[in-house]
């Protein structure tokens, strides 16, 4: 096995890591883009998705459990998002720092709740048999290259979510309303659009996507009360790099981050790769503070 399979494998891993990051970050980008809300409890929505996957798998064991878990986690996390929005975020609108602090408090409460309900040591969510294998290239230049089915599945989910989201925003009436509110909130309200309802649905959509992301992240990682913290930092990173609030930017930034760290790791270990990644992002932001995609009026025009 020479260099080529390793490099090709790392390019694939870069896409795979990007798919994890984009799923983890889309919800953040959505709520920030429309409402300028930085949701510190976003990681806990991912955690919630993981636990909902665990509960669903108890009820629906067998090969299709994980497919059943995805809509359950989406709706469950969206419902929690609705409660969060109506009880807290709505009342703190236009006070970004207060929202930051309040949602951080919510994140601590949710972590402790998970600890009290499920215990501190985490629960077991496993990939079903039909995902638990890998494709290996048997001959040719890339002989020995291994592509895990689980990672392919997550890539497909990421593409499906991004496709559905851009269709929703570009082609539906709800998308039209969202874009209108995003372009000019006051004008949209004056034109008779229920701005509050648009805010609420976008926030729920964001937390719902996070819940769904939590299900697929559980296939490759742990489900513990503080698992959200492992993903929320890279999620913030790609949202900032992508241009705050831009969905297209978030997707591109995920890919940049994923490929950068995967390719750098051919030469250095994971710890150093993280250092280099952060240096790269700092450098990038120095020269392009607005991020990959500059956010002007049409923020959510993905």
């Amino acid at each position, binding site marked *: *096995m020479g260099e080529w*399979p*390793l490099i090709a*494998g*790392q390019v694939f*891993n870069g896409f*795979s*890591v990007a798919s*994890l990051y984009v799923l983890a970050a889309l919800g953040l980008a959505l709520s920030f883009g429309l409402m300028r809300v930085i949701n510190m409890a976003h990681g806990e929505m991912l955690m919630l998705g993981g636990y909902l996957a665990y509960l669903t798998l108890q009820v629906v064991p067998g090969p299709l459990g994980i497919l059943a878990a995805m809509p359950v986690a989406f709706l469950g996390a969206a419902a929690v998002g609705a409660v969060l929005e109506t009880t807290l975020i709505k009342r703190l609108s236009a006070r970004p720092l207060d929202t930051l602090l309040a949602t951080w408090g919510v994140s601590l409460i949710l972590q402790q709740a998970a600890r009290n309900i499920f215990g*501190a*040591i*985490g629960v*077991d969510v*496993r*990939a079903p048999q039909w*995902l*638990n*294998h*890998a494709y*290996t290239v048997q001959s040719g230049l890339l002989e*020995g290259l*291994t592509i*895990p*089915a*689980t*990672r392919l599945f997550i890539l497909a989910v990421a593409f499906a979510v991004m496709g559905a989201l851009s269709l929703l925003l570009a082609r539906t009436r709800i998308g039209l309303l969202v874009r209108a509110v995003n372009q000019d909130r006051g004008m949209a309200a004056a034109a008779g659009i229920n701005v509050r309802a648009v805010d609420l649905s976008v926030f729920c959509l964001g937390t719902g996507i996070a819940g769904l992301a939590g299900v697929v992240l559980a*296939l*490759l*990682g*742990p489900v*513990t009360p*503080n*698992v959200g*913290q*492992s*993903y929320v*930092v890279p999620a913030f990173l790609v949202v900032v790099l992508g241009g705050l609030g831009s969905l297209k930017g978030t997707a591109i930034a995920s890919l940049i981050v994923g490929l950068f*760290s*995967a390719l750098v*790791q*051919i030469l250095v*270990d*994971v*710890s150093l*790769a*993280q250092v280099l990644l952060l240096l790269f992002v700092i450098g990038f932001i120095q020269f392009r503070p607005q991020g990959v995609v500059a956010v002007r009026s049409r923020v959510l025009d993905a």
Partner: protein
Amino acid sequence: MVMRGMYKPAGLAALLLAATSLSAPAPAWAADTVKVGVLQSLTGTMAISEVTVKNAEILAIEEINAGGGVLGKKIEPVVEDGASDPAIFAQKATKLVQDGGVVTVFGGWTSASRKAMLPVFQKLKSLLWYSVQFEGNECSPNIMYSGAQPNQQILPALQWAVEKGYKSYFLIGSDYVFPRTANLILKKHIDADKLKVAGEEYVPLGGTDFSAVIAKVQAAKPDIIFSTLNGDSNVSFFKQMAAAGLPSAKLPVMSFSIGEQEAVAMGPSLVEGSYAAWNYFQSLDGAANKKFVAAYQAKFGAGAAVTDPMVHGYVDVYAWKAAVEKTGSFDPEKVRAAAVALDYLDTAMGKVKFAANQSLVQTGYIGQLDPTGQFKIIWQSKGTIDPDPYDPLVFPGKKCPAS
């Protein structure tokens, strides 16, 4: 993670300080009791592991009290919370010894917490009983190290692997002092045995992405992986290994931080077939172990898992009792001298005794995980192994000040 890690201990610290200053007990020096400190993390990220060690230490104290106590006195445990924060460990150790009037302290898990407490015990001339396997390279007269030294856990694992005929080793660890030192020792010995280190990789504590590490494993094609990963990273590692078509059955993994409790938490089927090296397994034979497991499960639940550090904590309390009775005093200096002069104790992990360097003479075992989260013991060292804090290949010429 970084942010949370910074704020939470600080906040907890403030809360705990407030709580303890309110409830500080009057120094009651009843003639028929003697106070000992039990200092483990009851909150924070290490609580999962340390609460059970505290349980085992309390169990030993209760058993001793039920049997009449030590030198005619009942033991009164003073439990404090180290909150997974080395600074708090140091603070609470000071509080216990200086203000709490305890004669000795049982506690600590991470090397960082031990290093933070060490100057406190040296300054106050007290004695700490530390029950977790560690990286060696330290030998304080104020600490009794009952957990394995590298030559009692890591090197026996290597010896087993060499006997099995494994030639090529891949080292994976979390990025902190124990894995780095353990792998330094392993590399020197693998080289000395004329075998091959196929690779060495570190992932930050709590890291979840192993895609590149696994790609490097696949490229290097080792015979076995030696893993010093700690905590949740293990779940990500084993899940992603399985996803990449490398379950333990195909590429064996030897772990140094997975015990019975961790196996249950991770889902035994995920780690089934992988190996671990310890000085105790719940499945060990022997009347003393059967009695200990039964007593622990009677108190803490029928399914409760029992692990190596817990048993070391439990044995520490009994060793302290034996040393106190030998010297007839609670004075830490005299207890220390008596402890290293004790004969072999018959314990749940077999015959053990403290050596002159204050570490435990004990047996090394290799176990393989079965589907229920228990280990099948497949190898054990020939007799007990004398503890050596300074590996001769890595720290040539370094010796304990005490010996």
